[in-house]
């Protein structure tokens, strides 16, 4: 063992920690409506962002349009009762051998208060991420965010009785959702990783 090899190992550990922090900070910025901060977590060469049933937004420009114009309503304030809590759970982060790109699986569980025709509505959401990251100038950034929603239900009914409130495709999406198969479809979001013991 020499210093160079040790440094590689330390760098890998630092990379994983930085990516975990990035993913968690994304959620904290999102839940406090700091849309520019969210957009700035993406590489200028980012591929895409796709969450829920909103559709695919491609490139950094698409990502800016998605978070700032669509979700962020160009900075218009949301009503004070509206709330999104994004709990990031279970990161499995793998840095590619090149040390410059990485992939991560996460799941998220969200209690929210969202607007509806009848007024504020309490909702639960769940879904799995399979995200990609890229290291540029020593900093980890999002290359791709992909969140596959399992359910989007009201507090009063629960996921079994009412799995999806609707399809919320944004008009300016570059493409429709790639795999919108909420519960009870039984859809499995593919893993980016191989089995850690069998390698299959």
């Amino acid at each position, binding site marked *: 063992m020499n210093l160079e090899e040790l440094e590689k190992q330390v760098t890998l550990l630092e990379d994983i920690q930085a990516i975990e922090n990035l993913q968690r900070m994304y959620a904290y910025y999102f839940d406090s409506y700091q849309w520019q901060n969210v957009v700035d977590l993406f590489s200028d060469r980012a591929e895409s962002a796709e969450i829920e049933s909103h559709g695919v937004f491609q490139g950094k420009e698409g990502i800016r349009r998605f978070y700032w114009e669509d979700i962020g309503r160009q900075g218009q304030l949301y009503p004070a009762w509206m709330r999104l809590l994004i709990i990031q759970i*279970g990161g499995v982060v793998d840095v590619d051998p090149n040390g410059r790109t990485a992939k991560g699986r996460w799941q998220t569980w969200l209690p929210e208060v969202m607007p509806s025709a009848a007024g504020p509505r309490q909702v639960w959401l769940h879904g799995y991420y399979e995200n990609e990251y890229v290291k540029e100038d020593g900093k980890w950034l999002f290359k791709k965010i992909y969140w596959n929603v399992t359910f989007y239900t009201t507090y009063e009914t629960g996921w079994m009785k009412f799995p999806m409130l609707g399809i919320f495709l944004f008009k300016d999406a570059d493409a429709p959702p790639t795999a919108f198969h909420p519960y009870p479809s*039984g859809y*499995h979001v593919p893993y980016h990783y191989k089995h850690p013991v069998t390698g299959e």
Partner: protein
Amino acid sequence: MATIEELQARITRLEDIKQVEKLQRMYGYYLDYYEYQKVVDLFSDHAESVEIADYGVYKDKQGVKRFYLELLGGMPPRVGELSIGMVMQGVVDVDPNGKTAKGRWYCMMIEAKPTLSLHEGELRQLWGNGIYENEYVKENGKWMFKKVFFFLNFRTPYEDGWLKVPVVGQNGPSAEVPPDVPSTFYHPCPSGIHLQPHYKHPITGK
């Protein structure tokens, strides 16, 4: 100033913790999808046991296979069944030998499952919560499960909640795939009994 060997030992320890965390989270993801063979392959061939809630104890790798493949795998999920386990908040400690480790975790469950008894009855939407106290072993450079132990706090119908109905239905012991021994520590709410952690207090050492 530490020597390279000392630094290597410390880095290896950090890597070990990361690997154990990943192993535990992958276990959760495989279980969500009923991929029991993949779950079994996360266990060492010298695994000690698996004990989940009131199912009882299944000993050795053979018991691990019986539990996941025959018992759980023998009941294919019905249409509309949902099994989400959110494995959170790990406290992972690698033993000084660097070959074994222990970990405590919360698991919050979002489910739609039959609950009448022993998996009969209509599907109901459920909240569940419990605590893992698991053991891990490193073999040929790979971390695997040595022991899985899950303490159920509550498993309640969504409409009722954990205070009104702390545990709905019964999981075991199965007559078809019986455990080697009954549950050793099954005390869901409102027993008031707590599962002790594997670790000592980090400041007082007690």
